[in-house]
């Protein structure tokens, strides 16, 4: 079993008095996609900067492909693909020149024209970088990160500023990275992006890890948070509330709402209780929590 692509242990990043990352640990297994999800200022980019070797951690350690991002910088760089949040390329160079330059750094680069086509950038090959729109610049930066056939790519907000079509293209591309065995660590503040792309999600809030798991685990842990049952009005719901340790209300005549952390077993219990009460259930509706609910619950108060 190969070691993880990224192994971060108790990393702390400080900017003067401000602690941007406060003891974060995570690992990216080889060939998988991990999404760092969080608001602006949650510490995602700072953590990425440590993994990319742009700065050392003020505490803890980071190993990337088994190497130290700073001490082994020159050995590590050819194996990494890095997409910065913005900038990083010559504004006066054309998209084609920039991509060819980065291709020339690599021993076995991807075909530049193929990559330009895949990202819908072929018609901008002779356009100078500073004349490209924000979304086009982002796509070029992604191409730059991929052209050297890296084992591991770091994508900082890869779809920021992209329109819907470009975002879809980018998602498909990231999906094919996983299919081809590339490991990916990306940051995003888009829940649907994390949910649809990532094998693992780490939710960061205020410099710490608020939750971690697969998208399914994170939503399943939260379970069903609202169960609506329609039956005869006026049932003695207090006994059900006691049995489930949940909040049961009759919102309208015969419209019962059961709120709390419920799983499928408690769903069965609820239906059994209605049967015992001699009520005829005419409708059942569950509302499963989404990653968005989990995220909002976890990061509530992030604006403190």
């Amino acid at each position, binding site marked *: 079993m190969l070691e993880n692509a990224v192994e971060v242990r108790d990393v702390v990043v400080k900017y003067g008095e401000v602690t941007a990352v406060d003891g974060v640990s995570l690992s990216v297994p080889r060939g998988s996609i991990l999404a760092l999800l969080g608001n602006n200022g949650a510490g995602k980019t700072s953590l990425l900067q440590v993994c990319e070797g742009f700065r050392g951690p003020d505490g803890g350690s980071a190993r990337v492909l088994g190497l130290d991002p700073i001490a082994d910088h020159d050995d590590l760089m050819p194996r990494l693909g890095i997409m*910065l949040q913005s900038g990083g*390329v*010559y504004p006066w160079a054309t998209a084609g020149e920039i991509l060819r330059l980065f291709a020339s*750094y690599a021993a076995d680069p*991807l075909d530049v024209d193929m990559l330009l086509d895949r990202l819908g950038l072929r018609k901008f090959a002779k356009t100078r970088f500073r004349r490209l729109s924000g979304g086009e610049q982002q796509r070029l930066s992604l191409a730059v990160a991929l052209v050297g*056939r890296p084992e591991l790519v770091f994508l900082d907000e890869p779809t920021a500023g992209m329109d819907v079509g470009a975002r879809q293209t980018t998602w498909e591309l990231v999906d094919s990275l996983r299919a*081809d*065995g590339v490991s990916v660590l990306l940051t995003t503040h888009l829940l649907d992006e994390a949910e649809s792309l990532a094998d693992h999600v780490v939710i960061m809030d205020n410099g710490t890890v608020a939750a971690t798991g697969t998208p399914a685990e994170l939503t399943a842990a939260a379970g069903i948070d609202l169960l609506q049952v329609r039956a005869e009005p006026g049932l003695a719901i207090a006994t059900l509330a006691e049995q489930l340790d949940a909040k049961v209300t009759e919102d309208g005549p015969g419209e019962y709402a059961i709120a709390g952390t419920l799983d499928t077993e408690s769903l069965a219990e609820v239906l059994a209780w209605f049967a015992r009460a001699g009520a005829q259930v005419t409708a059942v509706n569950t509302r499963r929590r989404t990653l968005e609910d989990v995220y909002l619950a976890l990061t509530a108060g992030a604006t403190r």
Partner: protein
Amino acid sequence: MTTGTFTPSPGRAPMRDILKSQVRMELVLTARRGEAVVLAMGVPLLVLLGAGLTEATNVPTDDRLGYVVPGVLALTVMSTAFTGQAITTGYERSYGVLKRLGASPLTRPGLLFSKTAAILCLVGIQILALALVGVVVGWRPDFSHVLPAVGVTVLATAAYCGFALLIASLLRPETVTAGATLIYVLMLAAGGIMFAAPDLGTAGYFVLPLAAHAQALRDTLTDGTAVPGSIWLSLTLWAAVALTLAARKFRWE
């Protein structure tokens, strides 16, 4: 696993190839920026023709071209290695280019090497072109001391590069542009190029590296004499101080 488009195959190209394409990129981008070309070639050319062929300025000798042409050669070294380099590096830093290229297989030493090589390349081309214009209009250089002339030029280039990287690291790019251009204009006026430099004797060589370099080129290329020891010492000191400070203070982002 089947082989797909993105199946990893990481590796660094041979360093020689990387450096070659990086130097080419640096040169292409320099050629593309019109104001840089004018500053580097247009101004020295005007000075050469204006001060060398007319009586517009007072020079301390009867051999106008013999005085002005070496001065212009020294000026163009400064404009490229100091002013142009400082402006470009300042902007590249603010655009995140230095940071990004440092985190690529090019590596930071590779980036510095490419910049230096590109500057030397440009300085060489410009000196040859301007010297050729000088010869066409009547300057008759002496080649007996051409090697020392090359030597002081390399020292001056190193000193200018060091200061360029230093100010590009310390100041905002707009300030770098304004400052580097101002210094260029001041040196053009006071550096002993088209007027005689303020007569400070040997001390002048230590205060004004441009004047020292210009004088060394006049001594070697126009008069066919050796470079004075004080000029060697001055330019060596300038280069050592500049490169030391640059190495200490250089910032990638």
